[in-house]
């Protein structure tokens, strides 16, 4: 492995960490409601704006702006679940027909709505968020990395581990997993399934917004900034197995590294196509993903 390969691997791994922040939330939503949230990228976009605007316009310190972005994303997630997702499970019998289609339409519409609303209200210009630290270059052996990116990667690892632990061991996490496995059974056991869904949407929205805030010094907040990471997270949840949190994390890191090498050794122009081709191949030939359970209904 030459020095450039190490550099590519480390940077791909870090990109994968940011993908994981997005993908874990999407995977949780799929687990609990069996839908794909096509507005997931817009939670990320809103987070990037929330962080950048309060830090730049109000002069709030970045360490306050970062959790603030999480809260904004969580609030948006809660509102989405409350107003648009309830019909998917709350006893609307006639909704059984075209349920999946409703979910696609309504989240797709929400995505278009948020993009265009921000475009009209805040404007189409890109805002560069303030970095967490001003150090421009850190040298770690053969790897050259900006101080902000290194710090953001550390924070991402901590948040991902905390989320995974929350899902695995906390009382709420156990309830969420119970509802994901069997909604009816969980509700018979006394679990408030509506509350579990609301928590998942808040967590998912918050994590996506947090990712947007962490990356805002690099990506520059603009109305359509969420489309790209959203597409990545669709690829990841399919690769990792829809609804599987560990699968989503592993697949995120894998995709980050694959893209990093692919862009250099295969084709820079088609770097965004690798993942999409993987997504199609997986859905067509191995819909349970790398880690999903076999026999899941497709």
């Amino acid at each position: 492995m030459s020095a450039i390969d190490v550099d590519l691997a480390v940077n791909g791994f870090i990109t994968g960490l940011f993908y994981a922040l997005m993908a874990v939330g999407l995977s949780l939503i799929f687990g609990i409601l069996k839908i794909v949230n096509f507005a997931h990228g817009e939670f990320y976009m809103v987070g990037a704006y929330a962080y950048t605007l309060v830090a730049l316009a109000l002069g709030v310190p970045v360490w306050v702006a970062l959790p603030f972005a999480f809260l904004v994303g969580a609030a948006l997630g809660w509102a989405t679940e409350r107003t648009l997702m309830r019909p998917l499970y709350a006893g609307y019998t006639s909704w059984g027909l075209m349920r999946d289609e409703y979910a696609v339409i309504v989240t797709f519409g929400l995505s278009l709505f948020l993009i265009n609303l921000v475009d009209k209200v805040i404007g189409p210009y890109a805002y560069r968020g303030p970095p967490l630290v001003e150090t421009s270059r850190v040298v770690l052996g053969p790897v050259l990395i900006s101080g902000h990116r290194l710090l953001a990667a550390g924070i991402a690892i901590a948040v991902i581990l905390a989320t995974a632990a929350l899902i695995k061991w906390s009382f709420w996490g156990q309830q969420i997993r119970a509802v994901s496995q069997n909604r009816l059974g969980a509700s018979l056991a006394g679990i408030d399934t509506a509350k579990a869904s609301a928590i998942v949407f808040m967590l998912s929205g918050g994590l996506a917004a947090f990712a947007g805030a962490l990356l805002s010094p690099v990506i520059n907040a603009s109305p359509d900034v969420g489309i790209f990471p959203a597409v990545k997270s669709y690829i990841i949840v399919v690769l990792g197995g829809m609804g599987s949190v560990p699968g989503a994390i592993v697949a995120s890191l894998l995709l980050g590294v694959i893209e990093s090498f692919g862009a250099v050794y295969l084709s820079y122009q088609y770097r965004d196509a690798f993942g999409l081709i993987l997504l199609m191949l997986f859905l067509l030939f191995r819909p349970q993903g790398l880690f999903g359970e076999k026999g899941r209904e497709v």
Partner: protein
Amino acid sequence: MTQASPAPAAGAQLTTTKTTVEFRAALVAMAIVALIPLGVSNPYWLGVLIVSMYFAILAGGWNLLAGYTGQFSLAPATFAMIGAYTTGLLGTYYNVPPLLGIAAAIVVSGLVGLVLGRAVLRLVGPYLALTTLSFAEIMRLVASNSIDITRGDLGLGVAGLPIGRLAWYYLFLAVLVVLLILFYLLLRSKAGLFLQAIRDDEVAARRAGVDVVFWKTAAFTLSAAASGLAGALYAHFAELVTPELGLIAQTGLILSMAVIGGMGTLAGPLVAAFLVYVLSEWLRDVGGYQLVVFAALVVIFARFFREGLWGLAKAAVRRWRQA
């Protein structure tokens, strides 16, 4: 129907009547569209109406697939792009005349639709949406990155037709009406019942003897061919093809027309295509809020008025009759 044919079952009768009412309403709407040039001669607004008809064909074709068969593809705009590039590339490299190019566009996009439809047969709901979305993005990336062949994002110049704007108007309208009649005949026949049976319960449809594989693939192929035709016509009208034709935002527009008009109805998406596109041109002048308004309308219609404008109109007529 001849006298000899056996009386259709009660269910068939019901659907036939519903489809026929919708077909008549759509014909009335098309007749109104045909009369518009008598009062409007402004080439700009005629152009807007022509583009509306382009979208009406796309929304109608997508509605056949998503609204009637329940296959929620996110690639209708991509098939229009494929059709547009087919005739554009044939004309540029092989000097194929436009009419032949348009015919080739129908065949090529239909074939691509056949292959894709065949490949995604087993996928439903979110899986189908994601697969078709990836297909759409890959196709757009290919069109925009094959710069040597397609000139990428600059766009490919396409030969126009030696006809005026008014002739274009009636050409698009004629194509739209022919497609409308074809869809009506298809939906009125047994095939229409098969498609809707697959949408409502695929397992039960198969159990009852419907050839699910054939009809799902057929709906995909037909819908893709109709989109390809629309794209090819549009290419010769605009005299330019760009990868932008296949943008996800274009699919979003097609989807909003079908949802606002009423999915699974013959007239709704067609009428809504005109309303949405003309209104969006007007709103663009007022303040550029058109996309915000339509996106909000899509969410509101999907959430509260699932049968769209057609459903609202039907309810209004029912109330008026009772009063």
